[in-house]
């Protein structure tokens, strides 16, 4: 140790015995004596309790009498008593920072049983403190003004209490909650234990006080984005989520009544549902409605090239609002019934329901709505325009284009080469899928709104494009793709090799075809299936489809493949024709087996021939359906190397300004909706051209796009996709329509499978009924910036997810309920109006088991006790007795935890009410009956540890008393406010005993269940405590901050600017003129990173200077220091 005294400071050393806490392990007298040996030490004493007033007076007197200039106390952690002793030092007349503390309790006597080692360590720490303190400099605390406004995060009972306390005291409060209403979990609870007062009755008055209080600015449906600054002046960014309802709302509930959407209600936790536009509960504060709506469209709408509002009509069908559904359908789609039958329904491929079980049968639902309503009207123009548009091709693309143009009032005339309108719809899709009548009806509807048709007119032959350009202000060319591609294999041109598309056309137009008995169809698309099934109907005996990839890659609709196989058509997968054999007339085809290689650009795996796997199959006809290509003919339009018309990708404008082109003749063979989408795009472009609008702006979402919506698919009940009824096999010889369409009951069930992934279905019915016009679909989310002096975080807890314990069967066994489901159930205003019933909503349980400690006191989940479950489980038992006097109630507990005023008494009361209390953790809950009497019951398997026996208890209902958990996002939140959270995610208080609501960050407080499991009284108490601490700070007006700050010695600064970017608070700025850096003290938080980084030692970290730390270091190592250093130190 240091026995040469070069500093002339008089250090007083005080060693605390802390009763036996320190003295029991450390030889305090010995150490005290030893310390005197340090040259800098003037006096060294030991005392029973240094923190006691006598202890502190000891310091004060010595300073006054012996004239100490420095003080060292060796006792507990500085986090415990540094403040105390600094004040003592100050009272003695010294600057409080001329004091240093040695932590010999937490780091010493409490951390080991080895007395010798502990004593040795104590010596080192004390010596270190002495060596450090002599280098201490007097410092002055930094005053900071406190902004009296306070931010309270979380509108549960805790936040409400804190907000009211502060507001009553005349301070401004911002109360932020992410839900549309304040109230938190307490609002969901029916009765509170042990007094059994009605939770709502005691909460709602406080809620409305908050709502009405002049000093409280309520920000619900909002979240804190960022927090900057420090105690006294934080600046906080809060994002207000879009509610689509403005403040005109009178909460009349008209919108709620008409809304067709029904999703699981957050407030009624799973046992209740809510509409898309909703109010969590009747007493909600603020008492307005909120429309939950994602920014992206639902998967089905986004995935549909024409953005048919499928989500909308599905929701309306579910509500039996068929007329409205049809209205919605025909608004986007002039071929509703046709699409309802023959659409490739890309919507179903992206439907999220498919990730649960199967996609919704979206297309057939549309067909149902159309069939059900029967007659309908397409939208007519509001006012007529003079511009005339000529459309070439009466296929889906032309018709869609015509409809959209007509809606805008333009004059439209459609030309087609064929004798009938409809294009591929008429000649490409077989009668049994799409009856003639349907086509005629829907084309009729298009005629009805004033679209003219001119058939049997081939462009470039009967009329030229030039003439059209003369007659019309714009032309849309959609001539489709009617020419079958060739495979390009030997023998392909012999008799008996047919083109699928021509084959189907001939059949549809009634032309004569001579077909053999054995047919090979080549291809895997819908037209392959159409061809095969048509061939079968024309009397072919054996029809075989040959497809080169596996079933998984087959483009044809799954359902079609099924039907084809059902009709006896066989499919050879991973097979491809290599040559057609015969002399001018097909006799056999040579096929080759394939295997799948790496995916090609279509994303499907590329088929690779297997050498030597060739084999011959005799056949009379081969029908090729590998896709069509456009035949533009003499159209004078620029075409690309595939013979498709070249167009502007966005506007579909061709090489000729007035002429637009789209559909199959541009993109090659595509789906019906694909073609329609192009028609609509063209219509939009033509409209923009006529109105002289920008041709490109804001068209990103035209056509199918990927929606980013993510829905929670957890625990969705598997529900079967409705299969469309079909006519029996024996009736399938002719071309009678195979699909019969859904029955109303089927349709309803099917529509109800919708997950409402975007929640709001955009049917806009609510707008139509809202008298005050409070609904505003154009609303956007906004971010507001608050400046506050203090923050109280009261973000509460979440319930343990009982699904994590599969053997308890929640989510799998209907009649296993969670505690909150039960709370909602017994609430008079809840979904079951206070009746305790099973999932069927009818049957009252005769036997109820209440399982304690679900997810709590369990190493597999949460080790801690959730504190409230025992009490609310007992409460449940009481409520069951009250509602169902004859029911047997079993409470299965590990230990009964009833500490609290009147709690134990309540427990005893229940014992008298006849509840069965069984001590033991439940092993399993199962519906597997092994004895007749167990049939239809839930069996609770438990070891009764009081009698040491296994028991199987048959019950009708199980309630899982799930524990409390930190909010899922507690980690992010703790970073946001610079607090810590413990391993379970609960926020860390500054001191477990002495500072339960303060955090490590000055000016940030925590209260309620976000700090740890708590019941209502404790949460309220903490809310109040936090409020009063804030109030005290506000009262002080200014607070003194630790003077631990960095400062730069100008002369030593080389202006290298290394420190500039290191500072997390950008508190260091570079003075260009003097070429030195400077610390802005107000911003500096004193971390010292810059001090350590400065290459020229030009930065001082007050109270943590290099010399202070290094002296401490050398003093600490007195006993192991090699000789040369001793000299040095």
């Amino acid at each position, binding site marked *: 140790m240091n026995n040469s005294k070069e500093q002339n400071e008089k250090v007083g050393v005080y060693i605390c015995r802390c009763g036996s806490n320190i003295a029991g392990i450390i030889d305090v007298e010995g150490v005290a004596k030893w310390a005197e040996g340090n040259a800098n030490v003037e006096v060294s004493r030991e005392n029973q309790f240094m923190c006691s007033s006598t202890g502190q007076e000891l310091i004060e007197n010595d300073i006054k009498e012996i004239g100490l200039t420095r003080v060292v106390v060796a006792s507990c952690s500085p986090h415990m008593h540094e403040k105390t002793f600094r004040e003592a030092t100050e009272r003695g007349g010294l600057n409080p920072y001329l004091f240093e503390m040695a932590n010999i309790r937490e*780091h*010493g006597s409490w951390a080991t049983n080895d007395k010798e080692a502990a004593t040795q360590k104590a010596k080192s720490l004390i010596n270190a403190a002495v060596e450090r303190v002599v280098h201490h400099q007097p410092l002055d605390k930094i005053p900071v003004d406190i902004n009296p406004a306070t931010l309270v995060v979380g509108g549960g009972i805790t936040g409400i209490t804190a907000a009211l306390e502060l507001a009553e005291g005349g301070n401004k409060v911002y109360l932020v909650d992410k839900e549309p209403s304040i109230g938190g979990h307490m609002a969901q609870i029916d009765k509170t234990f042990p007094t059994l007062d009605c939770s709502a009755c005691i909460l709602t008055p406080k809620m409305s006080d908050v709502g009405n209080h002049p000093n409280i600015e309520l920000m619900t449906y909002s979240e804190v984005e960022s927090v900057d600054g420090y105690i006294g002046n934080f600046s906080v960014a809060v994002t207000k989520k879009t509610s689509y309802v403005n403040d005109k709302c009178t909460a009349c509930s008209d919108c709620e009544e008409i809304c067709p959407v029904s999703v699981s209600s957050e407030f009624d936790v799973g046992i209740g549902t809510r509409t898309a536009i909703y109010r969590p509960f009747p007493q909600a504060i603020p008492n307005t409605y909120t429309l939950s709506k994602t920014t992206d469209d639902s998967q089905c709408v986004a995935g549909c090239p024409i953005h048919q509002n499928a989500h909308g009509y599905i929701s309306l069908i579910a509500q039996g609002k068929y007329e409205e559904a049809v209205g919605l359908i025909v608004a986007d789609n002039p071929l509703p019934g046709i699409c309802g039958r023959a659409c490739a329904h890309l919507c179903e491929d992206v439907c999220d329901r498919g990730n649960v079980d199967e996609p919704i049968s979206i297309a057939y639902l549309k067909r149902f709505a159309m069939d059900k309503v029967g007659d309908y009207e397409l939208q007519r123009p509001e006012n007529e325009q003079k511009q005339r548009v000529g459309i070439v091709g009466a296929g889906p693309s032309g018709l869609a284009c015509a409809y959209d143009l007509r809606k805008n009032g333009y004059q439209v005339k459609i030309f087609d080469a064929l004798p009938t309108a409809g294009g591929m719809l008429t000649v490409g899709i077989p009668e049994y899928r799409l009856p003639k009548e349907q086509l005629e009806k829907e084309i009729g509807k298009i005629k009805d709104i004033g679209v003219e048709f001119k058939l049997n007119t081939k462009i470039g032959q009967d009329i030229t494009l030039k003439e059209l350009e003369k007659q019309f202000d714009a032309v849309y060319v959609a001539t489709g793709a009617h020419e079958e591609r060739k495979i390009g294999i030997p023998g392909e041109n012999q008799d008996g090799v047919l083109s699928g598309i021509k084959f189907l056309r001939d059949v549809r137009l009634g032309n004569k075809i001579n077909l053999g008995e054995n047919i090979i169809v080549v291809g895997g698309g819908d037209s392959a299936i159409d061809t095969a099934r048509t061939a079968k109907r024309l009397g072919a005996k054996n029809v075989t489809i040959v497809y080169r990839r596996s079933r998984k890659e087959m483009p044809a609709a799954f359902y079609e493949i099924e039907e084809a196989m059902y009709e006896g058509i066989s499919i050879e997968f991973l097979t491809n024709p290599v040559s057609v054999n015969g002399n001018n007339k097909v006799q056999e085809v040579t096929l080759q087996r394939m295997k799948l290689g790496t995916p090609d650009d279509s994303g499907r795996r590329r088929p690779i021939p297997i050498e030597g796997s060739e084999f011959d199959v005799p056949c009379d006809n081969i029908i090729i359906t590998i896709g069509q290509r456009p035949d533009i003919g003499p159209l004078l339009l620029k075409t690309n190397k595939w013979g498709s018309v070249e167009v502007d990708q966005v506007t579909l404008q061709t090489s000729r300004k007035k002429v637009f082109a789209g559909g199959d003749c541009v993109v090659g063979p595509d789906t019906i909706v694909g073609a329609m989408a192009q028609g609509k795009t063209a219509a939009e472009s033509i409209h923009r051209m006529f109105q002289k609008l920008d041709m490109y702006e804001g068209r990103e979402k035209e056509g199918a796009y990927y929606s980013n919506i993510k829905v929670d698919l957890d625990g969705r009940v598997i529900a079967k996709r409705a299969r469309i009824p079909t006519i029996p096999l024996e009736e399938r010889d002719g071309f009678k329509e195979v699909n019969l369409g859904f029955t109303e009951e089927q349709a309803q069930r099917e529509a109800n499978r919708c997950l409402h992934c975007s929640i709001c279905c955009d049917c806009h019915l609510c707008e139509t009924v809202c008298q005050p016009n409070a609904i505003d679909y154009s609303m956007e989310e906004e971010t507001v910036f608050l400046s506050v002096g203090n923050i109280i975080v009261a973000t509460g807890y979440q319930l343990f997810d009982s699904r994590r314990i599969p053997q308890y069967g929640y989510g799998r066994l209907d009649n296993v309920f969670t505690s909150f489901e039960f709370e909602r159930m017994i609430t008079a205003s809840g979904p079951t109006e206070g009746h305790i019933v099973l999932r069927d909503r009818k049957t009252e349980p005769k036997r109820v088991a209440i399982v304690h400690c679900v997810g709590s006191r369990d190493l597999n989940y949460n080790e801690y006790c959730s504190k409230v479950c025992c009490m609310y489980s007992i409460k449940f038992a009481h409520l069951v007795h009250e509602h169902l006097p004859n029911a047997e109630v079993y409470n299965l507990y590990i230990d009964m935890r009833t500490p609290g005023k009147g709690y134990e008494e309540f427990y005893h009361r229940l014992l008298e009410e006849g509840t069965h209390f069984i001590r033991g953790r439940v092993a399993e809950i199962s519906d597997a009956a092994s004895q007749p009497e167990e049939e239809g019951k839930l069996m609770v398997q438990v070891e009764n540890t009081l009698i040491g026996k296994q028991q199987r208890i048959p019950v009708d209902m199980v309630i899982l008393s799930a524990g409390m958990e930190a909010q899922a996002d507690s980690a992010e939140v703790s970073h946001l406010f610079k607090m810590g959270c*413990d391993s379970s995610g609960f926020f860390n208080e500054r001191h477990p005993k002495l500072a339960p609501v303060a955090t490590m960050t000055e000016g940030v407080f925590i209260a309620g269940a976000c700090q740890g499991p708590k019941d209502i009284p404790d949460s309220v108490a903490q809310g109040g405590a936090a409020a009063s601490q804030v109030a005290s700070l506000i009262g002080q007006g200014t607070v003194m901050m630790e003077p631990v700050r960095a400062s730069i010695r100008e002369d030593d600064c080389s202006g290298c600017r290394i420190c500039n970017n290191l500072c*997390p608070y950008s508190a260091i700025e570079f003075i260009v003129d003097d070429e030195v850096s400077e610390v802005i003290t107000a911003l500096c938080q004193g971390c010292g990173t810059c001090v350590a980084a400065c290459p020229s030692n030009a930065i001082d970290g007050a109270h943590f200077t290099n*010399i202070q730390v290094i002296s401490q270091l050398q003093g600490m190592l007195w006993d192991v220091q090699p000789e040369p250093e001793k000299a040095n130190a």
Partner: protein
Amino acid sequence: MSDHYEPVIVGFLCNWCSYRAADLAGTSRIKYAPNMRAIRVMCSGRVDPQFVLTAFINGADGVLIAGCHPGECHYVNGNIKTMRRFLLLKKTLTQWGIEDERVQLLWASASEGIHLAEKVNAMTEELRALGPLRWHEKVLGENGKVPVAVKEA
């Protein structure tokens, strides 16, 4: 002290997380090796490499630098800077033939008393196995001089 070898570790503990972790270890009466002597710094980012060297020069056998978990730093990201420095420092020390185990970095939040205690135990055993550092023989040579920087300090 008895003549059998007890490694001495200097611990630089940040005020917000790891120092409190050590406090918590004590408060919860977790018994662990008494070989670590703690120095409190506001942030692990304050730990200047020269502190580590000084510790070695003055006879420490190992140095433990402890801070908040990445992302939980009380000063936003001081601990990240610590990590950067720490890696550089290690490189240098290895070049001087100083074993990796001599300087260690630990993330311990205020609630991880046990975590810190276990680390100290582990490190003590590692150092015990390595034996004393003997900086002078190893780095400066028998008649080694003390680096200037430290003198000035």
